[in-house]
């Protein structure tokens, strides 16, 4: 399933100022599969978007590719 992580990483790299700081990890928890998206703190606003619009778009596309069970969590690199 690492293609999901690769796909998300690609989608995000294209829309941020610091593409080299983008990292995605697929973690499996009791609640299901989660793509943890790490970006440069300066890019947090970009991946979240106005009213969460960009994050929603990322989640919608990943659900389309990976199925409804897939979660996307945005984490900044300081965490």
């Amino acid at each position: 399933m690492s293609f999901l992580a690769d796909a998300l990483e690609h989608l995000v790299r294209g829309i941020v100022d610091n593409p080299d700081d983008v990292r995605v990890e697929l973690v499996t928890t009791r609640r299901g599969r989660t793509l943890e998206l790490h970006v440069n703190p300066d890019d947090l606003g970009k991946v979240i978007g106005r009213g969460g619009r960009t994050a929603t778009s990322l989640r919608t596309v990943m659900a389309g590719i990976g199925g409804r069970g897939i979660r996307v969590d945005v984490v900044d690199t300081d965490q």
Partner: protein
Amino acid sequence: MPETVQESGTDQVDADEATVVPTAGGETDTVAPTQQADPAESDSDGDTDSDTDAEDSDEDGDGDDERGSEDLLVREGDIAGDYLERLLDLVDYDGDIDLDVEAGRAVVSIDGGDDLEKLVGPRGNVLEALQELTRLAVQQETGTRSRLMLDIAGWRADRRQELRDLGRATAERVLAGGDERVRLQPMTPFERKVVHDAVATFDGVHSESEGEDPRRRVVVFRQT
């Protein structure tokens, strides 16, 4: 191959032809409408513009009134094509990407295998989301907001025809008496624009949009 794809693409929306529900997750725009008409949407099908278009048409929420130069639009298409081609590679979907410039905006169309349905999604919601991301990727490179239109597996073309039919049928129903106004289901800006244009071809009715995205919907009134 494209024919097969188009057919299966419409299955998702054929379920209830006359009912359009909002795309899931609120990926439709949440920005406040401005008074700036969107030339790209207005020209999308060459139909008459109604005066209600302006409120719906600002899908991007910006105030751009310049149409991009041809060169910029070609460049937008190239950037979008690269972004999407790489995505198709990573998820291993077959698809041919076609780039065009129509009515002052870049148009990117992807046609190919059945997998592409996943990139259209229920009622086109994945397509809308991917278009949004693609526009952001273009903007990241060009520094200018993009009005690029993405179509996948002919979904928008099919949807446009369905919505045109819905707009006409609704106008006829209002004209025929009975209801003085008919409220349609919530739609995306793209969808509302097509319905408004279809209604505008009838005398004696007019349409407006009401509510806030993603619940914004078209209302068709009998003119008194």
